[in-house]
């Protein structure tokens, strides 16, 4: 048994997911009058931000690793 994904794989996946979520959250924002969508938009926005922050943390870890080495 072996974990098939490396730290950098997850970092890349987080980056792609964060971009998709952030763009989606912006496009369906009620600010543009899209009030007929039956979803919790604040929750989507929060998840998008959390995913983006997680990606930035992986970037910070990478930078820290480069500096240390």
């Amino acid at each position, binding site marked *: 048994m*072996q974990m098939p994904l490396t730290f950098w*794989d*997850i970092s890349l*996946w987080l980056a792609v*997911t964060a971009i998709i979520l952030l763009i989606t959250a912006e496009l369906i924002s009620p600010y543009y009058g*899209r*009030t007929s969508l*039956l*979803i919790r938009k604040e929750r989507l926005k929060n998840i998008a931000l959390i995913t983006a922050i997680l990606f930035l943390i992986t970037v910070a870890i990478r930078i820290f690793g480069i500096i240390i080495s």
Partner: protein
Amino acid sequence: MKDPTTKTDSGLKLLKVGKIVASIMLIMGALSFYISVFYASSILAFIGLGLTFWGSLLLYIAPSRYIKLELLNAVAVQNLTNIEKVIANMELNEKGIYLPPKYLKDFESSLIFIPSKTNYTLPEPEEIDEEKLYSKNPEGVFLTPPGLALLKLFEKELGTSFLRADLNYIQNYMPKLFIEDLEISENVEIDIEDNIVTIEITDHIFSEICWETRKMERTHKVIGCPLCSAIACALAKATGKPIIMLDEEINEGEKVTKIKYQILEG
């Protein structure tokens, strides 16, 4: 008028289907990720991670409880019938005056005074009581505005009372409240000229209730629909002056409701 419930029903069906799809995605994703560990397959792991994440996300952002718009309309319209009865029995034809907080014992509350004669003379503060129905000097009736509960909801969402606000605050924050926070309408425009406030609301969820209120001629003329009433209460609280609703126009084609209010001196 087009039946708005059809749109809601299809939306609810879509939600149910969405929840089933999300659950399947979640199970398939977890399974795929579990298998990927045994076969050390990064492709399976990516598929598993993606399906699990999107499945749980779809479940998380789906609203847990919802009310059909037709239920909301049925409850709200029935209450307006009682107001119509009172106004019709008292033969009141004058515009209802939304009283500012200084006339009330409970500042956070709201009250409408409907005079029986054509003059905008307001009753003395001592005469006004939230528990009273009739006023003797000047003659008229005190009613609880049909939009009072909606006003409380506005204040709860804004996190402040309109007592601490002014017209600028309403002009700046009400569009955000209606569009982004409560998702009541697609657009709101507020225009203030001297003592006339004009509010244009595009495609709002109370259109059916407002349409039903129009059938009750006296209520529509004297008080307005619950949404108009809530805005009038907010204006009365924010300006500290009596407010009357001058006119309410509905443009069906453009789905725009235009409401005009007058700020009285008092």
